[in-house]
């Protein structure tokens, strides 16, 4: 039993933090930079420090690390507002390594080098969060039809990882090139403006058996759980960054002859933020471990606990961060809204609090029944 990271992983986290601070400052977004261009400039730097190979096995050219170590990196992605296409690509590498078999070796090697961008096409209008209720499906001729929402970076992706029911009606994963006949990609206007999102429409797209990733429903469950885990971790990073920003501001800002941070009405709220972030971190780190090493039941429970807590924390911290900056917090210039947008986006996209709560309760009842 040990709930801590190794020193070398903290050092890697610092490297990533410093790199992002130097290469991807928020000023660029505030001054009207297009996230597509910013991402294009950032990508090679991230590839250079080996980030895209983080979870690619060493014999395929990666670092061979696990979702445990990714937790610290994912936090930094949240804090620095790294476009979600980066996370999607790294998460895809985990899924391809686990379920793709020999057919995916070449893709893994390219992923490790950062020369392959994968977009995860998961959610749908009227689909909610349960893949069993998604409409996108393959017919018995192997034709894929359906419409996916909020697919990060899809227009620039080399491959689309699409959650779709197979011809037997079971959730499965298809990996296809975006230029295949029948696929159309349209940019969306989404709440989060520090990344680019697309609607991906598939109309009778030919999918060969070789385009399907193995693992069926378990592969889909792992993908969704890993995306939710990464979201919970990024929310922890967003929370920590917002608290730092807020604390720095209330130390400086003076009213009634003293820094407003000296008033209990302010400082007590900062303390509550710190408590919430600390606990959300515990959950997010534990979910990372459960993704790496937990049995499926423990994984589902850990991920949903982490995401439910991260969601509540996100709403709380983002509300307070803007409020405690007063009128300045509501200005474009102060740029808090970028984190607000990204935080609420992650909160809602990868499973609502209610969805994850219900999974936790169902798991608990099953566990209690087994113990009886």
């Amino acid at each position: 039993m040990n709930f801590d990271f190794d020193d070398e992983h903290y050092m890697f986290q610092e490297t990533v933090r410093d790199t992002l601070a130097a290469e991807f400052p928020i000023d660029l977004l505030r001054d009207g930079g297009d996230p597509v261009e910013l991402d294009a400039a950032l990508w090679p730097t991230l590839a250079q420090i080996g980030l895209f190979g983080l979870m690619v096995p060493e014999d395929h050219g990666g670092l061979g690390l696990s979702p445990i170590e990714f937790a610290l990196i994912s936090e930094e992605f949240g804090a620095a507002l790294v476009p979600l296409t980066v996370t999607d690509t790294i998460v895809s590498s985990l899924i391809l390594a686990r379920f793709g078999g020999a057919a995916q070796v070449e893709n893994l090697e390219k992923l490790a080098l950062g020369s392959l961008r994968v977009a995860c096409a998961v959610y749908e209008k009227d689909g909610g969060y349960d893949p069993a209720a998604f409409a996108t499906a393959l017919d018995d001729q192997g034709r894929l039809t359906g419409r996916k929402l909020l697919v990060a970076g899809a227009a620039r992706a080399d491959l689309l990882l699409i959650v779709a029911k197979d011809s037997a009606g079971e959730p499965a994963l298809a990996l296809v090139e975006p230029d295949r006949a029948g696929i159309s990609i349209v940019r969306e206007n989404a709440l989060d403006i520090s990344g680019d999102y697309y609607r991906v429409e598939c109309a009778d797209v030919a999918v060969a058996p070789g385009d399907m990733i193995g693992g069926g429903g378990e592969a889909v469950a792992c993908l969704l759980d890993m995306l939710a885990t990464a979201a919970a971790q990024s929310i922890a990073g967003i929370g920590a960054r917002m608290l730092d920003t807020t604390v720095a501001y209330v130390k400086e800002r003076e009213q009634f002859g003293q820094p407003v941070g000296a008033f209990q009405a302010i400082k007590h709220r900062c303390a509550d933020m710190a408590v919430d972030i600390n606990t959300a971190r515990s959950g997010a780190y534990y979910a990372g471990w459960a993704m790496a090493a937990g049995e499926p039941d423990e994984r589902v429970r850990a991920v949903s606990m982490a995401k439910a807590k991260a969601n509540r924390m996100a709403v709380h911290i983002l509300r307070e961060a803007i409020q405690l900056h007063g009128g300045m917090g509501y200005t474009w210039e102060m740029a808090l809204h970028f984190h607000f947008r990204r935080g609420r986006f992650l909160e809602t996209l990868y499973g609502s609090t209610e969805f994850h709560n219900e999974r936790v309760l169902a798991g608990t009842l099953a566990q209690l029944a087994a113990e009886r």
Partner: protein
Amino acid sequence: MDFNYSPEEQAFRSEVRAWLADALPEGWGRTVFEPEDEEERAQFRISWERKLFEGGWSGISWPQKYGGRGATLIEQGIFAEECARAQAPEGINVIGRNLAATTLMHHGTEEQRERYLPKILAAEEIWCQCFSEPNAGSDLASSRCRAEADGDDFVINGQKIWTSYAQYSHLGILLARTDQDAPKHKGLSFFVVDMDSPGISVRPLTQITGEQEFNETFFEDVRIPKANLVGDLNDGWRIAMTTLSYERGAEDALARQIRFKQELDLLIENLQDARQGGQKSIDDPAIRQRLAQSIVDLELMRMNCLREFSKAIKGEKPGPESSLMKLYWSHVAQEMFDMSIEVLGPEGLLMQGDSDAVARGRFPLSCMQSRAFTIYSGTSEIQRNIISERVLGLPKEGKRA
């Protein structure tokens, strides 16, 4: 990072489990319970602590030279989990083991450790904590209880309050003023006081539950030998901070987490059998959401503890960060107990002794008891001051015209 237990840790767990099964009476927790009378219950708990000592389970993570097992905090945690699983009685010498002993290990002399620690382990001497005063609660540093040097003794005069278990205690840790002229934090000293000394009187206070755990304690010309001073004269505030960081720390929180989780499991079990209106209570989506929130909150309380344990094993000492844990658990536990009586419906309001009461009426009682969580060991407001000033570095409130 690894949440799996090592073979040694698993073997330790099996050993604890087997011992508890043997030591507790047949039917314990199902048909046999603790005495309901408070005095009898206190005696029962003392005798349980002695049994733990005889079995070698007292002071699991204490160093071997003080009679402990020298085991890790993880094993201490496993022991607490197994006690909870067996619904073993709680101890009464919590202040002795968790506060007095840990403080003496940091700041006591070797003579003091040899004198006091073995008898804490053996539950031969029960301890209480004489810190708060009627006019020095949250503002603990303004304590006025005086200790004046007189020959080989200090002479104590003053009043303490909220002294839990003083009526059963042999010894107390005492914060008293030894320099009237120094700034308030710099004139306090830390003592061990024999609670049987002439001049000490203890008056029980009745709590909102009707129970009488805590007391007012009066000191009138009470003589304490100078050898009972812990640490340096006028260095008591710093030492008391050590005591408080343990009181708010992960070891304390983990043991509580296990008890809270048991109560939540019991609540869920009762809701599975209960009906409200036309449906089973456990099928009500609103109730399911509230239960899930508490499950998450309490599981993450455990995760917070384990993270702190891992830091402590790496050698980090508990500091102001322990307030993060205490502020968190006190509120989520209170919310859980608030929720418990609401989701049970009308019968949730029946208390112990009523034949229709749910789970012997423990939820409304726990709901009342949980009011104390956000007050003792420093109110939530004090924890927020500590976090904001000492963890986040925000300025102290200024003295404005």
